[in-house]
């Protein structure tokens, strides 16, 4: 592949958006920051993609118009936590095919309590018909039961998941953009109010308002720090919701993703995996091959993740930085690209290769979409 990310931007995440905040404003702010980071202007952009749950009544074209973009390539993605990978997959092909030269990918949402309640009550038809009337308000209960299945399958306990939450909070303390930056102890994790057994408060992502964006270009400018895209793969409906949800769609696409990238899991110095719940961090690291069949999962968490030996979700992840709706899928991509370009500030790690995963769209019992991207630091 010959496409790289050369700029990233975020509209600050917040739990309490000020009155008058709009989704369009948030996304535009992230786009402006990403372009500034890339040293480009809106007049340089000829491709744009966006994902948002709360952009209506506007669409991608309205947003592009309001940002003054003149485009030869435009898309809108609706796949939530997997949208960033999906947009990246299409954008890379668009640049390679010559349909565009400079593409901005953006995602964001105004996700206050009212918007979150509307979203989870009418997420899709299955939710409207079979989950909301239970009643069930959001996916916490589904992932609580998935976590129970994983605990039984892998022999994990609450402390193991706590080590993931605590480690990510440790990273978040060095991320000024994270909404939760106060250190989190294991006692605080274990004694937090129960949300849906066995999930406590710190197992569940806090919904926030915010937006993320990246700038993609063809690999032409030597000497510019960039995150080169080595591979992008996606998997949708890999098991038709007929299994237990412990394996994500990554299991179906990881092998070809590594093959396309020309490297393997052991080459990875940074993993940004979709962390709506700690159990999904474990599931995706396993599906990607970073947590191998030979590893003891509890030991892997304690000795690789908790120690930072394998940097995982160095922004603090969504568990500490927050889940800004559809931007949750872009969050890890922004963090990985910023790290590989050496722009991660106090939490900067030394890594040449990063893997980013997306996961999302709970159709009935668990997510149906998964994406995998492998990036390489280049100059």
């Amino acid at each position, binding site marked *: 592949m010959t496409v790289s990310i050369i700029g990233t931007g975020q509209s600050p995440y917040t739990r309490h958006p000020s009155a008058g905040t709009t989704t369009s404003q948030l996304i535009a702010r992230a786009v402006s920051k990403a372009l500034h980071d890339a040293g480009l202007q809106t007049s340089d952009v000829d491709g744009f993609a966006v994902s948002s749950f709360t952009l209506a009544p506007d669409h991608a074209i309205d947003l592009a118009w309001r940002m003054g973009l003149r485009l030869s390539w435009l898309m809108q993605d609706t796949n939530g936590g997997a949208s960033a990978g999906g947009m990246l997959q299409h954008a890379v092909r668009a640049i390679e095919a010559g349909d565009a030269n400079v593409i901005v990918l953006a995602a964001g949402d105004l996700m206050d309590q009212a918007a979150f309640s509307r979203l989870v009550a009418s997420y899709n038809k299955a939710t409207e018909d079979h989950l909301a009337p239970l009643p069930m308000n959001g996916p916490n*209960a589904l992932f609580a*039961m998935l976590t129970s299945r994983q605990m039984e399958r892998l022999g994990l306990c609450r402390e193991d998941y706590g080590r993931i939450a605590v480690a990510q909070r440790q990273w978040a303390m060095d991320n000024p953009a994270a909404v939760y930056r106060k250190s989190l102890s294991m006692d605080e994790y274990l004694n937090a109010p129960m949300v849906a057994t066995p999930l406590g408060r710190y197992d569940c992502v806090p919904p926030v308002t915010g937006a993320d964006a990246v700038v993609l270009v063809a690999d032409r400018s030597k000497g510019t720090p960039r995150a080169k895209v080595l591979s992008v793969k996606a998997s949708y409906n890999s098991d038709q919701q007929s299994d237990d949800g412990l394996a994500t769609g990554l299991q179906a696409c990881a092998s070809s993703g590594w093959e396309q990238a020309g490297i393997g899991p052991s080459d990875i110095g940074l993993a940004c995996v979709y962390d709506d719940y700690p159990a999904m961090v474990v599931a995706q690291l396993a599906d990607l091959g970073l947590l191998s069949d030979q590893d003891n999962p509890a030991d892997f968490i304690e000795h690789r993740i908790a120690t930072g030996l394998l940097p995982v979700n160095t922004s603090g992840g969504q568990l500490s930085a927050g889940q800004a709706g559809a931007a949750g899928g872009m969050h890890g991509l922004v963090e990985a690209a910023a790290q590989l370009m050496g722009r991660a500030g106090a939490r900067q790690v030394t890594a040449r290769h990063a893997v980013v995963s997306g996961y999302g769209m709970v159709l009935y019992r668990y997510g149906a979409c998964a994406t995998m991207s492998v990036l390489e630091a280049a100059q």
Partner: protein
Amino acid sequence: MSAAIQACLGCGSLLFPARLICPRCGQDDFSTVQAEHADVQQTTQLADGTLLATLTIPNGPHVIARVTGGTTVPGDSLPLTNNPNAGPGVHAFIPVRSNVNENQP
């Protein structure tokens, strides 16, 4: 007591939620059948005390239900119902619209 489940007329697969085309055989003709019991796989209790469960219908799909009329543990077999006020006894309530299959009145 029982709950409405979709059955594929092509291959007999039991499906829930209802599909438009069978993921197993590709046919789009379905009927509605009544499933009487399912086996509890996992439960979760919400902060307000609501007890939800994942159950497996024998030879059929996994379903999400609210446990009514008492409590349960994994391994139990519970009667299924589409009635949230079913009783007496412990039931697994599965909400459905008036029809399971969209092409049927």
